[in-house]
């Protein structure tokens, strides 16, 4: 990114090739609309290009890139969708605490498992889904997720735990 800030277009092409897929999937699975994901993907890179001369090496480029994308996602979610409430979290905990006899064990096909995971991700609250995606899609650790989402590491860990529990619940249905 520093090389691109000094006028090296090839450096930008390398950066883009390295992060394009993971960034796009993070955006697509966060907003769940292809057109919106395209728009935010282009807007994210546009902001990267505009900030090329102000860029300082204070964190990983991936963290900075995902931070930009996350902010765009937050803005978009605030415009189109309310935040998830606490009732949904309580419902997850009740399901997790249910007896084993009430949770039917089923052997699901791999296709069905992927479909359920997809739907479970869509049903997650935005903060939990973002933390889960940043961990699973982009491989960020707790501190990096905390930096991207601008919350504490413990908050990130809690969000990840809630997200994991809901996904498991969906698999158990």
């Amino acid at each position, binding site marked *: 990114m520093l090389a*691109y800030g000094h*006028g090296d*277009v090839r450096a*930008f*092409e390398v950066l*883009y090739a390295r992060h*394009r*897929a993971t960034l*796009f*999937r993070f955006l*697509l699975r966060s907003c769940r609309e292809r057109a919106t994901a*395209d728009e935010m*993907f*282009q807007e994210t*890179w*546009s902001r990267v*290009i*505009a900030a*090329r001369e102000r860029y300082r090496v204070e964190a990983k480029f991936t963290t900075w890139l995902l931070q930009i994308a996350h902010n765009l996602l937050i803005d978009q979610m605030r415009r189109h969708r309310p935040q998830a409430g606490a009732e949904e979290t309580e419902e997850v905990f009740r399901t*997790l605490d249910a007896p*084993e006899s009430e*949770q039917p064990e089923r052997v699901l096909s*791999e296709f069905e*498992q*992927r479909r359920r*995971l*997809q739907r479970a991700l869509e049903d997650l609250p935005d903060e939990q889904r973002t933390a889960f995606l940043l*961990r*699973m*899609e982009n*491989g960020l*650790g*707790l501190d990096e997720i905390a930096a991207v989402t601008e919350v504490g590491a413990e908050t990130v*860990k809690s969000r*990840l*735990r809630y997200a*994991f*529990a809901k*996904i*498991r619940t969906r698999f158990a249905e």
Partner: protein
Amino acid sequence: MSHKDADDREFDALLSGADSELARLYRKLPQAEPDAKLDAAVLSMAHRALNPHLVAATQQAPRRRRAPTWLVGFGTAAGVVMAAGVAWQMRAGLEQQAATEALRQASTPGSMAEVVSVSPILRDAPRPAAAPPPPALEPPRAPSAADKANSTASAMAPAAPPAPAKPKPVDALKNDKRAMDMIAPREEVQSLARNAQPDAFPQAPVEAESRAKAQAPSPAKEAVVVTGQRADAQRLRERGMDDLNSVERKSALAAGVRRDEGYALEKDKKQESASGRVSAKAVASADAAA
């Protein structure tokens, strides 16, 4: 309790990045990627950011496409050529028309032009105040002094200018005066007027004078006409009202002959002086106009 422990272990594996069932399942999800169009847009954006002159070129290109210079120049030149051709055609037509008019004017003599401008007025102008009786209805009679004057005037008329009764400037009146002199000398006109009967002017002499001034701009000509009317009235008066037919009676009444009028010569003599004054006034006014 074992299920919860299994979940905790799997969650710890998720945090540590170790391979887990959920991570494997997640990797099997569809791996969506941006399409080539989106990649091109982002890369183009990065290139334009480093080369602003490319942006200016791309912004000016549509402007050039919108208004091609050669097309504007060609259109202007075509318009100028067309306007010049139309102007040339119009100028040629005007020149031809002017030449035709000049030829027509050159072939026409100036005297003819004057005659043409005057002759239509001649036919309408000499209308006396009192319509004279139609000459075709006059019965044969012995020639009198008034008839002699009329015949003299008509014999000399072709030599006179054709428009004596029309309102004219002073030069024209002078011409008329000369024509009247040619028709009949002033003394002859005065004698004829003296011989005419005064009853030809039944109204007051002042009224007759004003009517003569208003309707007859040429006093000399008016004198001839008045003399002719008086001669007709004299003729009718000599015949007497009882001998006239209906048409002649109407003409006599229009000329001022009264029904009960006899051949009172004394009365005629009295009025003769009045008619002489009218004729003298007419001659005087003709002289003044001349």
